[in-house]
């Protein structure tokens, strides 16, 4: 998806998480806390204790909440050449996404898989799906419901960066998490 759309989704993701936070924290507290992260409450530990933790008096975010918010802001995950598994460095971030889904059953995501232009187009279409499915399965293992996630592969049809060479290719081998 385009950068514009990305920006949009990032913003909407933030808005949604703030909104969801309001809903979450309102169960434990009466006041609205626009600045705390709902999914972090749910994810930092098991829901109940976390939400009380999240609302804690001052309105300051805990380290864990900040980490979770930052994690949810990352919506593009890059892959090595010819590799369908996401990078180990992304595991923690993806875990936050999965817990966010688990904590917000009404939330819907689209995982958009992409490949670089090397290799044939129809194989790349399949590779993009394989990459997105890798993240799908990780989300499910970590508590998301299958029905929350749609997977689509664009293969090499929608490069993030045009041009030949590893610089562009490394940007194009990716899965984008798009909030719906």
């Amino acid at each position, binding site marked *: *998806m*385009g*950068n*514009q*759309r990305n920006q949009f989704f990032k913003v909407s993701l933030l808005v949604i998480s703030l909104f969801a936070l309001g809903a979450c924290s309102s169960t434990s507290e009466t006041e609205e806390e626009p600045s705390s992260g709902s999914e972090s409450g749910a994810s930092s530990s098991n829901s109940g204790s976390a939400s009380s933790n999240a609302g804690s008096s001052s309105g300051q975010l805990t380290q864990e909440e900040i980490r979770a918010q930052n994690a949810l802001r990352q919506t593009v995950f890059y892959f090595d050449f010819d590799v369908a598994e996401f990078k180990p460095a992304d595991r923690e971030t993806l875990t936050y996404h999965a817990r966010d889904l688990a904590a917000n059953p009404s939330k819907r995501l689209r995982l958009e898989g992409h490949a670089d*232009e*090397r*290799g*044939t*187009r*129809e*194989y790349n*279409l*399949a*590779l993009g*799906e*394989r990459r997105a499915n890798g993240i799908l399965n990780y989300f499910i293992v970590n508590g998301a419901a299958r029905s929350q996630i749609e*997977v*689509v*592969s*664009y*293969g090499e*049809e*929608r*490069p*993030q960066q*045009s*041009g*030949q060479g590893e610089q562009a290719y490394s940007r194009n081998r990716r899965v984008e998490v798009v909030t719906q």
Partner: protein
Amino acid sequence: MKLRTFFLLSGIISCFALQSHAELSIQITQGIDNPIPVAVVPFTNESGGPFSQDVAQIVTNDLEQVGEFIALSRSNMLSMPSEEQEVFYRDWRLLAQDYLLIGKINQQPGSQLVQVQYEFFDINREMKLAGEVLTGSVTQLRDIGHTISNVVFEQVTGIPGAFTSQILYIVSEGAGPATTLFRLEKADYDGARPQILLESAEPIMSPSWSPNGQDVAYVSFETDLPRIYIQNIATGQRRQITNYPNINSSPVWSPDGSKLAMVLSKDGSPDIYVQDLNSNELMRVTDHPAIDTEPSWTPDGRHLVFMSDRTGQPQIYQIELGANSYNVERLTYDCFQCAKARFLPDGVNLVHVRRETRQSPTYQISILNIETLRVITLTDTALDESPSLAPNGSMIMYATKFNGRGVLDAVSIDGRVKFRLPSSQGDVREPSWSPFLN
């Protein structure tokens, strides 16, 4: 002399097909060492005109494009005959010409119809090989030129010419990912007269001609998901063929036009299926957790060739329709990746995209003889893909990159001749060469 009449179809076609603004123009990138010398004399305008198309120039371009011929420069001609009694073989022998084409054009006053008479001679044997009068609309002079090229080509080589065939291809154009437009276009085999068949903000992939030349199957993401559609080329009427979960891709018509091979990942991983277009019955052909894709039919329509990465990297396999899904035959072993394969009409030579080794990340168009296991690599650029065969089997059109943009190239199946259709803008790719069109 034979008389042929061109159907006045062009008016109907232009009703729905928008003329594309960016015409492709051809460029010969590699010819053969000893091309056949042929003189194509400018056709005389006997009445009517002047005409927007130079028929003799269209024939000259056709013949030189396929690399087998070299045309005599007009400025070197000693005479410019327009009919048989004006031909002096000695003049043309002096100029070392093997063949001679002459002709004249007549247009009745106030009429849209033109009559083009041509005659074709063998200089060394001093005999006329062919000649006829072609009748058509003044807007069809290009078609008439290509028809004459077909005759000349067949007279000299014994192989039917494919100059009246057409191509489908995909163009993407736009400043960035968010503004990219995708088009399915149709053009003459040489890229002339491009027409837009479909335009979308979402990707279009894998155009495939029906064997009767009337329909195209393709993948469109217009619903945000890849789905297969069939569109009538003349009327523009289209229908969605598939709506299965996940990937729906790679539609390819069976030789008899009754079925569509395709790839679906509805059951987990991409597998090959065949859908009957009359009954809509779906038959599963392969069943493997790896990726199976890029199906193509063997010439007899009884087997499917496909690509699978079940051994870790793409290799080419074949399966008989109706056989057990595990009963596959592997066809390639000697490449790091072999993909997008289809047989030539002989059923022995397999055109495919080949990456020789892991160390050299280049993809080239190659032909494997599955009996002798001999491999001929036809191209030498780095990112060649989507090979499509001319209806006379003489050339393969494929997509490659030039100056960072997607362009279409064609290469003869012996690798000796190449030509390029550069586009003025956008990324051009996924050529699909038509069958013989009537």
